[in-house]
Each structure stands twice: as structure tokens, then as C-alpha cells.
């Protein structure tokens, strides 16, 4: 239990047992990430799985370690949607262009054209 100086109200902010279980989950997800690094999956699958795992880890850290789950909804709604929208806007600009740029990648030395007889 913790007391917030600003509100002076007591509210649940997690037990040590809860924090240790979150820590174990974070370690387990990290272990899965390292294991996947050696599974020779296509890079796009890797990216999706790794980013999914990272977002879950980030959510666990923000919700439990940073106590956001125990804060008032006002604060959560001020922080999270604005951040998500800003990051999505950045992705919106860069993602389509990275696919275009993908076609411009170095493809190796140019093969000499086969001679016709």
C-alpha cells in the first residue's frame, strides 16, 4: 500500500510478490526472444514477434513497475493515447517509404548479359 502525497488517498500499488512475478515474466519473454534469434525465421516474422514481445514487456513495466495501472484514468488517458498516436504518425511517414527504398537495395554485382548465338 502506498500513500500519494498529492491526493492523500491510500490505494493499492502492488505487492512484492506481484512485482517478482512480473520480473519473472519479463525474463521469460527475453529468453524467448533470444531463443527465436537462432530459429532462422524470416525477418518479417521475427520483427512482428519481437516487437509484439517488446510491447508486452513495455506494457508490463509501465503498468506494474511504473504503477500506471494504479494511477487515475485521467493520467493514463493523458499519456498513453498521445504517445501511441505520435509514434503511429512517425511510422505512417517512414513505413511506406522504407518499402520503396527496399527495392533500391544493393543487389550484388551486375551479371554480364548472356551472349546470343
Amino acid at each position: 500500500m502506498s500513500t500519494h502525497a498529492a491526493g492523500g488517498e491510500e490505494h493499492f500499488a502492488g505487492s512484492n510478490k506481484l512485482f517478482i512475478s512480473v520480473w519473472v515474466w519479463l525474463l521469460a519473454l527475453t529468453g524467448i526472444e533470444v531463443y527465436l534469434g537462432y530459429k532462422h525465421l524470416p525477418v518479417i516474422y521475427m520483427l512482428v514477434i519481437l516487437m509484439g514481445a517488446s510491447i508486452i514487456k513495455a506494457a508490463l513495466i509501465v503498468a506494474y513497475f511504473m504503477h500506471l495501472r494504479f494511477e487515475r484514468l485521467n493520467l493514463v488517458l493523458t499519456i498513453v493515447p498521445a504517445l501511441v498516436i505520435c509514434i503511429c504518425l512517425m511510422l505512417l511517414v517512414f513505413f511506406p517509404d522504407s518499402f520503396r527504398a527496399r527495392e533500391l537495395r544493393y543487389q550484388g554485382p551486375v551479371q554480364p548479359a548472356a551472349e546470343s548465338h
Partner: protein
Amino acid sequence: MATEAQAITGDWGGGVHPYRVGHRKLGMWLFIMSDSLTFSALLIGYAYVRASNVWPTPFKFYPSIVFSSIMTLVLLSSSLTMVMAVSASARGERSKVRMWIIATAVLGATFIVLHMIEWRHLIGEGLRPFALPKEWAEKWPGATPLFGATFFGITGMHMFHVFTGCIYLLVVAGRVNKLKHEDVEISGLYWHFVDLVWMFVFPMIYILSVDASK
């Protein structure tokens, strides 16, 4: 709930804390938002450069992946010790708060030392911000020399945050008797944010660049 509804309605009357946090804690949250965007921009820029170039995947199991995995374990453990510090602070156990915060700073320093060893190894191989080692350039023909720029830029920026975090924590540990519980919570917010950023840097920089060849 009626009480919650009344409290929210009451927020509009002024003279209350609409977020139920102090102004310093709100300030730290806003700083974390802006810093998240800085790291997002760096990582999105990295993804863009990587997608549009031939990218080397040079990180061998030892030392790079072993070191970075241990660094992840150290940083996650430091977050746990920080949570313990905040819990002790909520109970008013000042000496325990100091002990847990110092443990957190020591783990942070361990992270920096391990990272410096990892950097030293890569620099020894010939990696520079704008040049690849000769062997890498031969193994991945046409690979962009920007690998070093993104690697040192992103991990360096993160390491700088860990370094400033260690100093911040030591200051808080030294002044713990004069500070309020919320001040300890605020230092915890910063530290957990540093941990959070590594949760994206580690897979994007290290795991996606594993050298799986024998």
C-alpha cells in the same frame, strides 16, 4: 462508482489534483513521453536505414549475445530493486530505501561496464560509426557502413541515460531523509523508463542481427 464520478466532477471546480499526482511526478511523466518519442525516432530511423540497405548480421553468440542477454538480466533486476526501494519508501523504511536504491545504481553501473566491454570488443574488430570491419564488408558485400552509426548512436544514447540515471539515483540515495515518498517514486519512473527502452533496443539491435552461421 458514485464516489469516483463525484471526484471527477469535482476536478472541474479547481483546487484539486486532477491526476492525483504532484506536479513533479506529472513533469517526469511528460519528460518520459518526450524521451519516448526521441527513442522512437531513433529506432524508426534505424529500421528505415536497415530496410533500405544490405545489413550485416554480425553478432555472434559469444561475446555479443551472451553479454547483451546478461545486460538485459542486470537491467531487469535493477528495475526490481528499484520497485523494492519504492515499496520500502511507501512504508517509510528510509534505510531500506537507501540500500535498494544503491543496489539499483550498482546494477546500472554493472550494465555500463558490460556494455563498454561489448563496445571495446566491436571497436577492436574494426567497427566505427561510419565504417565496417574488413571481414564484415567481405562477408556481406555492399553492406552499408551506417551499421556502426546506428549501433553506437542508439546504444550510446541509451547508455548515457543509464549513466545519468545512476547519478540521479545516488543523489536520491544521499538525500533520502530529506525527500518525500513521491520523489523516490519519480526517480523510479525514470529508471524504469531506461529499462523499458532497452526492451526495444535489445531485440532490434542485437537479436535481429544475430550471426546464426556456424
